[in-house]
């Protein structure tokens, strides 16, 4: 897919706008689920797209574009937590409502889970968000985060155990 960079190089901002429109849910979602702060996540997502605009010529394919965006967003999420003493705020009213509630989805359970995910250690949190927002397998996550596959798997296992335990204590005896 060379059409994005070529069109943008010719001054087609609308091609770049299309990319932003297509990928904003992914980039903002990663940042939001990681930071649990809408304003910070929007700022971070904007920075990611500005960086993409500067590096558009290096993007080789749609697959590469998605990989690049995930990698840069993940790196910036980690940087963000290291740059400032950031602690996630768990105000229930700030957690977004699920957009399309499918099947027997429980909004309260989703909110509780989002809060619990935001309380995980930064690396583990990123692994969980990439696994369940982007549906990436451990091998893909290891490439995005430059982390051994075994470490990704161990983060996932420990995080799931931690979440299961915390959720049972938070929500009560739920069939999980």
């Amino acid at each position, binding site marked *: 897919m060379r059409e994005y960079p070529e069109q943008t190089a010719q001054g087609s*901002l609308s091609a*770049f*706008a299309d990319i*932003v*429109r297509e990928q*904003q*849910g*992914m980039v*903002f*979602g990663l940042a*939001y*689920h990681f930071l649990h702060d809408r304003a910070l*996540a*929007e700022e971070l*997502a*904007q920075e990611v*797209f*500005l960086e993409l*605009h500067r590096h558009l010529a290096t993007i080789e394919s749609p697959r590469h574009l998605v990989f690049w965006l995930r990698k840069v967003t993940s790196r910036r999420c980690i940087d963000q937590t290291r740059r400032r003493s950031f602690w996630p705020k768990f105000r229930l009213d700030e957690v*977004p409502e*699920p*957009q399309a509630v*499918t099947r027997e*989805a*429980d909004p309260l*359970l*989703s*909110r509780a*889970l*989002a809060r619990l*995910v935001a309380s995980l250690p930064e690396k583990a949190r990123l692994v*969980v*968000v990439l*696994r*369940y*927002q982007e*549906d990436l397998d451990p091998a893909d996550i290891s490439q995005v985060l430059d982390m051994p596959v075994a470490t990704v798997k161990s983060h996932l296992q420990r995080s*799931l155990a931690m*979440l*299961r335990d915390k*959720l049972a204590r938070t929500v009560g005896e739920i*069939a*999980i």
Partner: protein
Amino acid sequence: MSYLEDDLRKALRRTEPSEDFVDRVLARVNRPAPPEPTWWELLAAVLRPPRLQWVALSVIVSVMIPFAGVQYRQERQYRAKGERAKEQLLLAVRVAGSKLHQAQKRVLEVGRMDTRL
């Protein structure tokens, strides 16, 4: 797949930013780059330390100077005491030496008298 994993997928689904997100990104892309700073602006930026660092530095200095002063005075007092003790010890050694010498002289004299008798 466990119920927990299924619930995580629902809780962590992709989320859209505010409606004007694309416009704001494009506005930032279109914003002209800030002019290159001149050499004196760069120099001033390098030489201008953050305010917080100055505050921390002055707090450290204002604590360290009195502490160092007290330490120096104590050190001098210990040294002076040590010097005095050394002098006293030397005097005592000298006195003891001279007494020992006198005693030795007396012993020798008594010895000589005994041999004469």
